[in-house]
């Protein structure tokens, strides 16, 4: 350290003020004029003392100014609890007064004072009991801090939270509205057939990636599809919308199911090249009702196989080996399968939200095979009976269903089914 030649040497040994300390001393004497009494009266917080029953014995000017009362209105006439709001008064009588009696102090209390104008003044209150030489409680000393800033801060937090809540509600409403535009509000009815569908969104915050539809083609033919686009949310919804319109347009252009998927593959591959790769899995089908039921042709692009449940209670997968997922490969190929639905038969299309669910909450997933067994056990079923059996199954999985689930069932009413 460097040693300088000023009065620093006077430090330490006797503590006497040096030459520079004269100015400090002058400032101190100015401060000393701020008497303890003046400090009490005009402190930046409110002070009051009460008798043990709460009767106000002394109050400082700061608090009187906040309250808008005159000293003679309060001292000897009013009890401290009377300065509080109704809720605060009850809290004082039931909690603060007993705490003071038992522990001699009570701190950190958030209360509201009633001013002479009837306004509420949020405050923080700390109290201690002053005891005499005989250890008997003599009076209560109360310090009151203005908590308007803190209250404003709390209200700001509350407002921010309410705003966040309302924005979340809006996002959910938007997601569900968007979802509704991606699914038919009601399925069209196909003459001589029964149809039913179900959609279970995995999240209320995000638009799901599953989709289905059923629509008339020329003549007696109908087209239908059920699929699942990669991803979730708004970006996936854009793809879902594109897929739906492409499938419907392609079906009009060339109703062959394999041709429809070829067309969709070309559109998705062209639209989503490079890093923003989007794809979907889908089963597209066409059906033509006839006198003995209905002829169906299905083409699959990487989608879990459709299931037919026969009137005799047997069920089988409608396999389309080699049908690839739609979109990412320029050279994707699709395969089709033909079948005939007789009275009492039901065709089911589903998404992997059902077969990938974890019903028992461990790592084990439900599977296509278990679904087949379940349907066989439930057979014979109509389209609506199939959907209600599967919604019951899904309800049993509860939060084991992690992904969106779409179901579409078509059946030819059997002789035993009541016809409208």
């Amino acid at each position: 350290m460097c040693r300088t030649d000023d009065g620093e040497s006077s430090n330490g040994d006797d503590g006497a003020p040096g030459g520079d300390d004269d100015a400090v001393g002058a400032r101190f004497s100015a401060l000393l004029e701020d008497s303890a009494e003046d400090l009490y009266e005009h402190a930046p917080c409110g002070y009051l003392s009460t008798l043990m029953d709460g009767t106000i014995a002394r109050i400082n000017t700061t608090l009187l100014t906040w309250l808008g009362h005159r000293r003679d209105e309060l001292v000897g006439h009013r009890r401290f609890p009377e300065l509080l709001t109704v809720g605060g008064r009850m809290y004082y009588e039931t909690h603060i007064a007993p705490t003071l009696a038992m522990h001699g102090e009570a701190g950190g209390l958030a209360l509201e004072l009633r001013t002479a104008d009837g306004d509420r003044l949020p405050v923080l209150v700390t109290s201690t009991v002053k005891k005499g030489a005989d250890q008997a409680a003599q009076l209560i000393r109360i310090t009151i801090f203005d908590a308007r800033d803190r209250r404003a801060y709390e209200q700001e937090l509350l407002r921010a939270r309410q705003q966040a809540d309302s924005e979340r509600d809006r996002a959910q409403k938007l997601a569900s509205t968007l979802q509704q535009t991606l699914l038919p509000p009601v399925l069209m009815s196909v003459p001589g057939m029964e149809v039913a569908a179900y959609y279970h969104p995995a999240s209320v915050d995000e638009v799901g990636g599953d989709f289905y539809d059923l629509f008339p083609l020329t003549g007696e033919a109908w087209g239908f599809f059920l699929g699942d686009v990669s991803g979730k949310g708004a970006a996936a919804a854009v793809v879902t919308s594109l897929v739906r319109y492409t499938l419907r347009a392609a079906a009009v252009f060339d109703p062959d199911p394999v041709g429809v998927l070829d067309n969709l593959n070309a559109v998705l591959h062209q639209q989503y090249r490079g890093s923003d790769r989007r794809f979907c899995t889908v089963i597209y089908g066409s059906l033509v009702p006839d006198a003995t039921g209905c002829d169906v042709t299905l083409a699959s692009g990487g989608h879990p196989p459709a299931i037919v449940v026969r009137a005799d209670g047997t069920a089988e997968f409608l396999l389309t080996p080699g049908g690839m997922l739609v979109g990412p490969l320029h050279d994707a190929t699709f395969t089709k399968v033909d079948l005939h639905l007789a009275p009492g038969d039901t065709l089911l299309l589903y998404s992997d939200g059902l077969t990938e669910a974890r019903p028992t909450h461990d790592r084990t997933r439900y599977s296509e095979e278990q679904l087949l067994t379940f349907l066989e056990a439930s057979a014979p079923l109509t389209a609506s009976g199939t959907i209600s059996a599967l919604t019951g199954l899904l309800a049993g999985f509860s939060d084991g269903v992690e992904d969106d689930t779409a179901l579409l069932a078509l059946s030819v009413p059997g002789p035993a089914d009541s016809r409208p």
Partner: protein
Amino acid sequence: MSTDFAATAHATPSGPVLVLTGAIDAFTAPTAHDAIEHLTLRAGDQLVVDLSGLLFCDSSGIATLIAARERALTMGAAIALAGVPRHLTRILGLLGLGGVFPTYLTADQALQARIVAPTVDGAV
């Protein structure tokens, strides 16, 4: 998924081996795409993607494998997968991609069974 993901590549006489380990999802897929873009591939090479250390793979991972295939075909190279985890084999089968990717138990087997790329300029 917070499991660490890594994409590393090393060269062999028959072409690069890309090793993907950990969880591949929407957050880690860009790292894999980056590695694929930076692979040194020549016509006639075989790109082997070693998946034996892959713990999790969602649709972003499938997109990554397809991107690797596309890049290999564009360069006139072939692609093979090695050490495909069982759950991924099942998913690739469901998606109809079982026949798109030749698969081997290990990267070494893939190197030994080195296949010749279809054609030098046959890819679109």
